[in-house]
C-alpha cells in the first residue's frame, strides 16, 4: 500500500471531516423533506378505506379511472400537508358524499340496508331460541315414553318368568 505524503494525508483528513460535518447537517434536512412526501404505501393505506364515487363498490386503491387517479393524487397532496387519514376521508365525504365510504347514506330507503341485517339477526336468533325451547320441552316427553316402554318390558319379562316357572312346575309333576 502506498503511504500518503503528509500534506496530502492532511488534506484528505480535512476533506473527510468536512464530508462528515456536511452529512451530519444534511441528513436531518433530507429526512425532514422526505417526511413531507408520503410513500405510495401511505397513500394506498388511505385509498384502501375509500371507494370510487362513480363505480359500483370498487375500492379506490384498485380503481384506475381518471377520477380515482386524481383522488389518489389529492390524498398524497393532503398527506404531504400533514392532514390525518380521517381528515382526508372527511374531505372526500364533503366532496362526493358518503358513497366514498362504501356504505349507504343513513337516510330514506337506505335505512333498510342498515336495519335489515339486525332484524334478520334478531329473527334468526328468536327462531333458534324458540326451537331450542321447544326441544327442551319435548325432552321429558321422550323420557316418559322411554320409562313407559321399560315398564312394559319389565311386565312382559315378569309374565315370561311366571310362565317359565309354571312350565317347570308342571314338568316336575311328570317326573
Amino acid at each position: 500500500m502506498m503511504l500518503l505524503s503528509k500534506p496530502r494525508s492532511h488534506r484528505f483528513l480535512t476533506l473527510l471531516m468536512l464530508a462528515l460535518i456536511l452529512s451530519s447537517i444534511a441528513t436531518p434536512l433530507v429526512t425532514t423533506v422526505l417526511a413531507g412526501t408520503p410513500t405510495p404505501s401511505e397513500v394506498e393505506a388511505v385509498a384502501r378505506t375509500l371507494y370510487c364515487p362513480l363505480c359500483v363498490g370498487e375500492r379506490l386503491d384498485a380503481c384506475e379511472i381518471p377520477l380515482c387517479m386524481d383522488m389518489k393524487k389529492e390524498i398524497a397532496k393532503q398527506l404531504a400537508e400533514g392532514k390525518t387519514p380521517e381528515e382526508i376521508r372527511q374531505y372526500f365525504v364533503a366532496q362526493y358524499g358518503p358513497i366514498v365510504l362504501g356504505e349507504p347514506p343513513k337516510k330514506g330507503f337506505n335505512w333498510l340496508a342498515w336495519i335489515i341485517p339486525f332484524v334478520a339477526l334478531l329473527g334468526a336468533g328468536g327462531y333458534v331460541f324458540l326451537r331450542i325451547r321447544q326441544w327442551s320441552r319435548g325432552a321429558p316427553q321422550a323420557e316418559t315414553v322411554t320409562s313407559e316402554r321399560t315398564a312394559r318390558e319389565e311386565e312382559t319379562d315378569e309374565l315370561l318368568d311366571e310362565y317359565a316357572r309354571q312350565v317347570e312346575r308342571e314338568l316336575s309333576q311328570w317326573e
Partner: protein
Amino acid sequence: MSAQNTPQTRTSRTTIIIFVLVLLFIGLLAAGLLMRHKGRPEKGPAPDFTLQLFDGGTIRLSDLRGKVVVVNFWASWCQPCKDEARDLEEVWQKYKDRDVVFIGINWSDTESKARAYLKAYGITYPNGPDLGRRIGQKYRIRGVPETFIIDKQGNVRAAIIRPMSADELIGYIEPLLGE
C-alpha cells in the same frame, strides 16, 4: 289443552307472521326501487339548489325567476364535456346580457382539475362544485354532461343527456326568451 295452544296452532301463527313480514319487506323494497327509478326531472318545477362558486360567491336557483337558466353538469375527466365546453361559453357570451343565466355544476371531480379545466376552456359563467353530490342527486343525474333548461317560471323545460352544439342550445333558449 285448549285448541288455541296446540303446537299446530302456534306453528301456523308463526308462519302467518313470517309471511306478513316477508310481504312487508318486499313491499318496501318495491317502493324504494320505484322511488329510485323515478328518473330525472324533465318537466315541472326545477329542484332548487344553492351552489358555492369557485370564485367564492354563491348562487341560488330560486333567485333567478324571470330568467332562462341553463344548468350544465360537467367534470374535467369527461371527454364529451370538453367537446361542448367551447360551445357553451360561446352561447353564454351571446346571451349573457339578456335574461339568460348559465350555471356550471362540477360533478364528481377534484377542485384543482376543475379549475384547470375552466381556465383551459376559457369558461366565464358561474361555476361551482357539487359538494356531496347533493345537486346531482336532486336532478337524478347518472353521468356527465347533463344539461337542464329552466324557463322564467322555474320549470324544467328540457333535460339533455348528451353534449350539445351551440346551435342546439340556442334552439332551446330562444323560444323561452319570448315567453
